[in-house]
Every structure is written in structure tokens, then in C-alpha cells.
């Protein structure tokens, strides 16, 4: 499925680290800055790796903390201990 | 297909039956070509209301706030009742000329007017 998925994040400290981690781990992702928020799109699937975000924050980041930073999503969601993903089936 | 419901025969109070309007029936009127009046206007009118009363009193009370109204000659207006062309007579009641509960009266005047 090549329909684009997307995630919109708050421009907060954590949101910024998540955005950086996504850009590093998801080749082809496109990042768009808007007032107070950042939207990232990619065809098919976007994955947030907990290890990548933790590395950027200097602490253990739990994928469920996404709830503190997310503004909007487009696509289905998959969540586990070490990642959070948005995808089309 | 009836509304899906837990038990068959779903219904509720129908609020706008004619008997709820104290002897009047609802009539909607719309002055075509004058959508500065945002929509048709709702009027509660007894069926005996002469058509002439509508044109002489009621419509002016509604539409004369528009400067165009001063130039309107209703005697040359084209009328439509519930989707059909209509030639009402001034002296007769609207009810006997086919206006029922929740009928829609649309009319066109010359000149066709402003927005």
C-alpha cells in the first residue's frame, strides 16, 4: 500500500526528539514545519523506535509517551514495548 | 425500510401536525431572486386567509426592508405552489386554492432584482 501515512507532533522538547528519530529511521519521510507543530508524511509506514528517541532524550522513552506529543494521525496504529508505528495495511 | 429499532414499530411524537398550530397552518413563502432574504419565510396562516391579505399586508411587512420592494408590482408576479404554476385569486382563501399545511409558495417579480 503506497498511500501516505502521517503523524503531526507538537513542537515540544519531546516532540522534536520524536521527529528527529523518525527522520533518521524512516528513509523517504517528508517533514513539514507549521506554526507550533510538525507534520511528517511517508508512503505506507512510519515507525518510531523507542531506542532512537531515548538516545536523543538521554532517558528511557516509553512509546506510550507518544500521547503527550501527538496532535493528529493518518493511518492505522501499531504499538509495542519498543516501537510505535503508523501504517496502511 | 423502517428505522432499525430494538422493537418493531419504532416511532416518536410527530411535533408538527397541523392541529398543533392553533387553527393556523404553516406556509412557506420565498421571493425568488432575492436571496439577501436568506431562505423562505415561515408563516402560520389560517386557511381562510384571503390571498389578497397575503399580498397586501403580509408580504410587504416581510419584504419592504429591501429597497427593491418599492418597485415590485405583485399583480404581475409569477406564482408557484408546491412545485406547480399557480394563479391565485385575491378574494379567495388560500386554503381553498390549494395551500395546505407546510405548502411552499415561491414567487418571481420584475425586475428580477438584486442579489
Amino acid at each position, binding site marked *: 500500500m503506497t498511500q501516505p501515512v502521517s503523524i503531526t507532533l507538537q513542537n515540544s522538547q519531546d516532540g522534536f526528539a520524536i521527529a528527529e528519530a523518525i527522520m533518521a529511521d524512516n528513509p523517504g519521510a517528508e517533514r513539514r514545519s507549521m506554526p507550533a507543530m510538525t507534520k511528517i508524511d511517508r508512503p505506507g509506514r512510519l515507525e518510531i523506535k523507542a531506542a532512537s528517541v531515548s538516545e536523543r532524550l538521554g532517558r528511557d522513552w516509553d512509546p506510550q509517551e507518544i500521547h503527550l506529543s501527538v496532535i493528529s494521525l*493518518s493511518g492505522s496504529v501499531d*504499538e509495542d514495548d519498543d516501537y510505535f508505528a503508523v501504517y496502511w495495511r | 425500510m423502517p428505522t432499525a429499532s*430494538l422493537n418493531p414499530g419504532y416511532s416518536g411524537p410527530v411535533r408538527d401536525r397541523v392541529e398543533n398550530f392553533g387553527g393556523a397552518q404553516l406556509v412557506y413563502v420565498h421571493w425568488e431572486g432575492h*436571496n*439577501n432574504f436568506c431562505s*423562505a419565510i*415561515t408563516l402560520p396562516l389560517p386557511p381562510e386567509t384571503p390571498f389578497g391579505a397575503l399580498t397586501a399586508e403580509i408580504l410587504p411587512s*416581510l419584504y419592504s426592508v429591501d429597497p427593491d420592494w418599492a418597485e415590485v408590482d405583485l399583480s404581475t408576479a409569477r406564482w408557484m405552489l408546491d412545485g406547480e404554476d399557480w394563479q391565485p385569486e385575491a378574494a379567495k382563501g388560500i386554503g381553498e386554492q390549494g395551500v395546505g399545511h407546510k405548502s411552499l409558495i415561491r414567487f418571481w417579480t420584475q425586475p428580477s432584482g438584486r442579489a
Partner: protein
Amino acid sequence: MAARKLNLKQKYGHFTRGLDWEPSYQSKDDIFPFAKYEGIKVHDWDAWEDPFKLTMDAYWKFQAEKERKLYAVIDSMAQNNGQLGITDARYLNAVKLFIQGVTPLEYQAHRHFAHLARHLPGAGLRVAAQMQSIDELRHCQTQIHTISHYNKFFDGIHDFTHMHDRLWYLSVPKSFFDDATTAGPFEFLTAISFAFEYVLTNLLFVPFMSGAAYNGDMATVTFGFSAQSDESRHMTLGLEAVRFLLEQDEANVPIVQGWIDKWFWRGYRLLTLVAMMMDYMLPKKVMSWAEAWETYYEQAGGALFADLARYGIREPKYADVAKAEKGHITHQAWTIFYNYTHAAAVHTWDVDDQHLAWLREKYPETFAQYYEQRYLNWRDQANQGKRFYNNGLPQLCQVCQVPMAFTEVDDPTTISFRVSEFGGDKYHTCSDGCKDIFDHEPEKYSQAWLPVHQIFQGNCGGATVPEVLDWYHINQGADNMDYAGSPEEAQWEKWMEGRRPAAPMAAAAE
């Protein structure tokens, strides 16, 4: 130690559906009496995949953190007279529409997601529904607490729940939600979680929140962003729930498609009010309604319906009409409110030259041709001291309850009139979309509490406009009428006089 531990998914399974059991002392049909009458077939509730695996410990922790942040902003807004930071007092009319029209729906959503949390037979869905239920309560309460500060200074906000039950234009949102909550649980889920939350909610929140941000209303931005993080959970629930129903049985597909068609149109008509707010009430404009529709419906909806095509789901019926109308509906809605500002708890005003130029630019195909002259005429009349008000009461659409101001798709000068017969009476609708909805369930829509008809039945305080306005609890001369000459305008001018010594700074910020 770590090796034998269950992973998140396994643990979550025990913490939710693992709590449930097959009853044997009472039948499932008696415990869940509403699960079957809509004709939806579910063969395996355990096939429901919970998109977010949020347990209560994490929920409490994250939500408490969000609330601490939000209330710090609300407190600061009250302490620092945050109302002085908005661009113009006219902006507040967007906030008024929000608390009168949207906040009560958040409360209704709270109640009805509790209904789903009790009455859906699947344990996983019940858990998701109850979190949404208290999320919606959160949104209702944080909106009240945020807007409470504005209520201290501005009109039209003070009796929003009373007005929501009575005012003519507020019957549009109220009947929308009443329609969903009086339906069965699966229709509600499709209507609110999918059609509204997933497909259309961005059109409600993004314009409101960016509008608030552009117009200096930091408090509204904050509750909006804070609520959006919950919304992403709600949207996901909507998408996954519909997918689940479609996967469970082929017979569900036409039922769900019918609901998508209906609720797309219901939601779209409701958004007319938001659309008008965007194009007319924001002193600093974010984007036009037409642009918002293209971004958030035509593009995002395109990807969604392409994905759902595998189940045999197509785009909502009349989506093409919505597309064709996008250059018209906001001007028609502003016309309604301008006509009836004397009976509304918001202000309207004459559109100034700068605003006219913006509308011409954003609506090159429609505005100058069909609407601009109307506004110029009104401005002339107002300048002669004869501000235009409509002396009659509007004809309302039996389904969406918006005054019948919408025009034919192929003829923007002619009102679109549709009529159906049921039980010996006529029922008027504004469009093919609303007529289809009526004709499908006339037993339901013939019950509608139409505010105009209620006035003529003598159920709204009296026969004269002032009596009805009293019954609405509209403070006459403050809540209603044109912004020009309103107490709010006078107050704002007084505040701005105080600001004038600092004019060089303000000018620099422009």
C-alpha cells in the same frame, strides 16, 4: 527476569479482555440487548485489535500531566487578563459558537461513549469506549474552564447550556448529536468515531485552533492541542472499529456504507457553521473554508477511501456535491446569521473592504459574481441607519435544521427546495443529501424539534420576538444585534484606547 515477562500486547490482553468471561447465569442477549437490532454481524469479538494499548495506570499518569500543563495556562490567562491579547473583539464570536455549539456535544459524547462502554459486547471495544467517554468529559470541562474567563468580559457565553437546548441555530448541532445517540451502538460508532472523528474532525479543530493561535487566543490553542492528543486516539478507534465491522461479515458492508453516506452528509452540513466562522469571524484569517476542505477532506479522505476500497467501501455519496458547493456555503451561512443577528447570541457585522478583497481572492469563481453586491447593499443600508434584519422566521431543513439557504448545485441563484411526504404531511429538506436521509427513516426525522415551528406552536415563551429572546435567555442589546454599537465593541474600544500609548510597539508587531 526480563525473559519470562509478558510483552505489552500480552499484558494488555490480560488487563482488558482477560477480565471478561462468558456468562452462564444470564444470557449474553440480556446483558447486551442492543447488539443485534441494527443487523450488524460480529462473529469473533476477539479479532478486535486494540490500536492503542493504554492501561489505566498510564492513562492517569499522562492525562494528569496534560491537565497540569493546561490548567497552568488557564490560570495564567486569568491572572494576566489574557483577553486583552486577542486581535479584535469580533474574534470572540468564534469562541461563542464553540461553547454554545460544540462544548455541549462533548458532554453528549461523554454520555454516549459510556453507553457503548456498557452495551457493546466486545470487551476490547468497551475499554476503548470508556476512555473516550472520560476524554470527552475532559474536553467539555476544559472548554468550560477556559472559556469561563471570556464569559466574565464578553456576551453570548453566559447561558450556553440553556441556549443549546433552545436556540434556532443550535438545534443544528444538537439534532446532529441527538440523531447519533438515538441510533443503535454500531451506527453511533460509525457516525461519531469514524465519519465525524476520523473523516471530518480536523475540519473542526484545526481551523478553530489555528484560528485561535493566529488571533492571540492562547488559552483556546492550549486546550485544543491538549484535546487533539486524545483525538488521535479517538480517530484511530473510529478507523479500526469500521475496519473491524467490515472484516467481520460481508453483510455489514452495505449497512456501514449507508451510515457513512448519511453521516458524511450530516457532519458536512453541521460544519457549515464552522466554515462560516473561518471565512467571516476570524479577524486574521488562517485559510479559507475551500482550502481547508481541499486539504482535510479531498486529500486526506482520498487516501482513506482508497484504503477502504478493498472491503467494497466507496467515497460517501454526495461528496461531489460538497466539493461543488465549497465556494458558496460560507457566504450563504453568513447571510443567514446576518439576517437573524437580532435573534442570535453572536454578533455579525458589515464586511469591510479588506475582508471583501480577501474573499474575492479566495473565492475567485463565486464571490464577486454572487455575493459581493449583497454585502455592499447591506453596508449602504446600515450606513443610512437601516441595518438589514429579516422580519420573518426562516424555513428550516427538516433534517440538518439549517435555514434553507443552500442553492442548487448547478444554479447558485436558486434555493434548493426538496420535499417528501410522510404520514400525510410534507417535509422540506435543503438538498438531495438531507432528503435521502429523511426518506430512509421518516419515522425518525418527522419527530424533529424545529425551533421555528415550536415558536409558532407557542412553546417558546410567547408570540413576539422579545418574548422568545427572553425565553432563550438572550440579554437583548448585548448578546444579540450587530457588533457595531454593541457593549462589546464599546468595551473593546475602551481597552484599545488604553493600549494606544504603546502604538509604536503594536504597529511593529503588525
